[in-house]
């Protein structure tokens, strides 16, 4: 019962924070709401019995990726001009098509929830089980992800190197 209450509380916070994140004009405020929504979904994961996924959500998304987002916002230093821009871009008629698409998805979810009867199983998936699954049946996905990251790393290294060369006045 407590679990259910926690779930609905976290879910409400997540939904409200996500809505606020989309509708804010100020980019830094939107980011803060996005972080709150990620933390909310971490709690949902925890309540649903996936503590490992929950803590990774905090560690990777809220703790690392969002930090880089804030980093970029700081570099751009948008301020009042950015808010004005957002006012121009976020006009009410912009919402029509995304809202329609979202409503369709919502209808689909409601239909699925009505037809299937998957109750909350409540089994807790520990970190060890996740690790064994990841490096057992799903090892291919891990490998592909690592290749993608390596490609990103090589790309970033290349960009950084060229930038340094330009700074010293040398050419490639």
């Amino acid at each position, binding site marked *: 019962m407590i679990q259910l209450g926690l779930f609905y509380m976290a879910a409400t916070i997540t939904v409200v924070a996500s809505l606020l994140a989309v509708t804010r004009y100020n980019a*830094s405020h939107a980011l803060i709401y996005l972080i709150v929504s990620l933390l909310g979904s971490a709690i949902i994961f925890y309540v649903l019995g996936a*503590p490992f996924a929950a*803590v990774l959500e*905090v*560690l990777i998304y*809220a*703790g690392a990726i969002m*930090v*880089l987002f804030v980093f970029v916002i700081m570099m751009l230093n948008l*301020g009042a001009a950015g808010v004005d821009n957002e006012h121009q871009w976020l006009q009410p008629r912009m919402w029509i098509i995304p809202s329609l698409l979202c409503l369709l998805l919502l209808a689909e979810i409601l239909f699925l929830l009505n037809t299937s009867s998957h109750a909350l199983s409540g089994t807790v998936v520990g970190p060890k089980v996740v690790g064994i699954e990841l490096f057992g049946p799903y090892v291919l996905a891990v490998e592909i992800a690592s290749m993608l990251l390596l490609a990103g790393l090589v790309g970033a290294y290349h960009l950084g190197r060229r930038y340094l060369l330009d700074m010293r006045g040398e050419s490639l």
Partner: protein
Amino acid sequence: MEELTIFLVIYGTLLGAFGAAAVLVWFERRLLGFWQDRLGPNRVGPFGIGLALADVIKLLAKEDWVPPFSDRLVFIFAPTAVVITMLLGFAVVPYTEHLFIADLNIGLLFFLGMTSLAVYSVLLGGLGSHNKYALLGGLRSAAQMVSYEVFMGLSLMGVVMISGSFSLVDIVKTQAENGWFVISQFFGFIVFLMAGIAESHRLPFDLPEAEHELVAGFHTEYSGMKFGLFMLGEYLSLILISSMITTIFFGGWLGPSFLPDLVLDFVPPIIWFFAKTGTCICFFILLRAAIPRPRYDQLMSFGWKLLLPLTLVNLLITGAVLLWL
């Protein structure tokens, strides 16, 4: 009974952490004075210990000014983040085998998650202040903390591999059998120590607030208790990192095994824990007194070019030893 114990531990931790942080303000200055051959604060009360209280009164009584050009929401939210996350981090610290708030099976990851969330305090403080120095300080801290988080997590994975668990109680229990991890995971310990200093942005790695180039970095615009919260957060993270080093690498509540059994039986485990943590805090303060602040690019290249390969080699060797020996 069980619930009462947990209740007491929670409030004990809360009061203990706040009290220790307040006393540390005085203790640090006093120790620095001792090591630098000067007196340090010795005016208020016996040995100057009243300074802790005087400082709190000063911070509470100061004008708490929110600059009109700042982003009010972000500006006020920023200092609370570090205090909340650091206090949450204490939830997984095992003081003794039975005395802890929560023994999560993801305890270590929870601690890492909380330290990684603490960076928002500095980041949003720099962003919300709308001040160039604060912004630069925030930028530096973002890069520094995201980088050192990587080594911090990786340096602990050797310990996790040996003990086979993320639970801090299990990690200490493994050390009762295998000896302290500071010996078998020495490089992991070194890297964790450095990353710990960088994460709590203590001197010598306090580049986000380097006074001589950035005024006061991310907290340039802060005054009164908001500034106090930043300081509180810094001391809390110092205590948290110290207790984590104690738990993970120095056997937590276990006494040193070379001592005779008589001593080990006589001294309660919790005394060992606090003695080790206290020693660790003193070591951090000694570092502040002894080492000059590196340049920003030196800090980054030191991390990526030395610490990262070191942790990876350490992981490789640990894995190989576990697999084949």
